[in-house]
């Protein structure tokens, strides 16, 4: 004999009818949530490269660009002049062991291993706007050390008025250097007060992980109120000088790229306007801010200077 017993609970009591009808969307959403959780986990797992990463009050509050944007759209001519090339070619760069020569106007010249240098200050997360001289911009969550703390360890003499940063020169590792599109090695420089400014950092990481090669590993200068080309990459030498260094782009086209290269919407590049920029990921252009939005912190460094002349 078959005894039919009504089920103790109706399915509709367990699953809401609307939810049942929309079960496909529900599953998709659940999948997304799970996926996001997994990605989140991997992102959280990654920062083990910098376990005690401090957040910085100097960080911008804008949402950062995606890791993909930041690591596939790079001006790093040592690996090719197309912005997609560094991501493809920079795997040939060997970043460990890496020695940095510190010399010039210092009390004692020294060669320091990058691992040692990275212990000179605790790494901080610095979310900065990056404005390229080509009128595009990004927001990038760097990991870096204050440049000032590196300079203190370098112990420059009172004669040091400028700091010069030299990029690695090795056509075997940097295939772009086989072309003479720029004079190698790439050289950049800062005035001492610019270098000592709290906003200036030596980046060693990105998105909580170690710095990808195409972004200038293992040591990349970041000076957020200046155009991107001021950020020397893969630095092997820090030299303190009395004379203003001649930076590579200034040497290549002095009428177009200056030593200071402060972001300035009022001073156009001779061939294009600097009034607006395209933030990657945005459709319409946004106005460019004086000193890339850092005027409050840095404008006083240039008081009394004619910024049209010292572009």
């Amino acid at each position, binding site marked *: 004999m078959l005894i039919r017993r009504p089920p103790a609970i109706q399915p509709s009591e367990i699953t809401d009818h609307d939810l049942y009808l929309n079960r496909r969307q529900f599953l998709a959403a659940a999948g997304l949530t799970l996926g996001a959780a997994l990605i989140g986990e991997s992102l959280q797992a990654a920062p083990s490269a910098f376990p005690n990463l401090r957040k910085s009050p100097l960080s911008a509050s804008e949402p950062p660009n995606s890791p993909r944007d930041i690591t596939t759209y790079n001006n790093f001519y040592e690996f090719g002049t197309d912005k997609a090339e560094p991501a493809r070619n920079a795997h040939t760069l060997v970043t460990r062991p890496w020695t940095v020569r510190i010399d010039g106007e210092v009390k004692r010249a020294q060669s320091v291993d990058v691992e040692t240098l990275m212990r000179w200050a605790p790494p901080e997360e610095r979310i900065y706007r990056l404005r390229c001289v080509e009128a*595009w911009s990004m927001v990038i969550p760097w990991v870096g050390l204050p440049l000032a703390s590196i300079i203190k360890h370098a112990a420059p003499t009172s004669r040091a008025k400028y700091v010069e940063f030299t990029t690695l020169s090795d056509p075997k590792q940097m295939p772009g250097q086989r072309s003479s599109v*720029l004079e190698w090695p790439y050289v950049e420089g800062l005035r001492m007060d610019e270098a000592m400014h709290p906003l200036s950092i030596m980046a060693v990481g990105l998105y909580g992980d170690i710095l990808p090669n195409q972004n200038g590993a293992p040591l990349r200068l970041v000076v957020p109120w200046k155009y991107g080309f001021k950020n020397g990459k893969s630095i092997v030498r820090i030299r303190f000088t009395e004379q203003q260094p001649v930076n590579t782009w200034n040497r290549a086209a002095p009428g177009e790229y200056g030593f200071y290269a402060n972001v300035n919407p009022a001073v*156009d590049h001779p*061939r294009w*306007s600097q009034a607006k920029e395209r933030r990657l990921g945005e459709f319409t252009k946004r106005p460019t801010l004086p000193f890339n939005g850092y005027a409050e912190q840095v404008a006083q460094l240039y008081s009394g200077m004619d910024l049209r002349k010292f572009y």
Partner: protein
Amino acid sequence: MKTLFAFKAALFALCLAPLARLVFFAFTDRLGANPIEFVIRSLGTWTLTLLLITLCITPLRRLTGWNSLIRVRRLLGLFVFFYAGLHLLTYAGVDQSFDLSAILADIVKRPYITVGVTCFVLLIPLAVTSTNAMQRRLGGRRWQQLHRLVYLIAAGGVLHYFQLVKKDVTQPVLYGLVLGVLLGMRLWWRWQSARVLANRQPG
């Protein structure tokens, strides 16, 4: 006739490939971090490439004796106009959001935009007079004189490319070299035929 039609149809489809590629890239997220720049650059280089291909027709005819090639020259030329128009429209509409004052300022102040826009404007009469009826109305000789503008436009296109690159001029120089060869061949042939004519004149 039938083969010509098939050839033209195939060429038409082929000329649409650069645009189809961009559409495919757009739908598969392959335009990179700066899609607007990618699209503008791609449309620009394809305009110039098609223009150089169009300029190959006359030398190819001379070298191969394959005269019916002339039948596809208009199709190629109109595709040059089509891609140039898309290139300009993407700049004006997508890059500048149709901000007319900004565009005008660009045209006046930025030499590469001045040159680029001039080239496009010069293309318009060539496209307008591309029909058989217009050709007849103008008469072969005047039509030909007008269409010699294409040499100036091609030179302007290469200059436009050369002016906008930041430092690496490899690509524009390559385009310039190809254009130089194509124009050089024409000059050489002109000079040859002028010499032949001169020799024929009785003392």
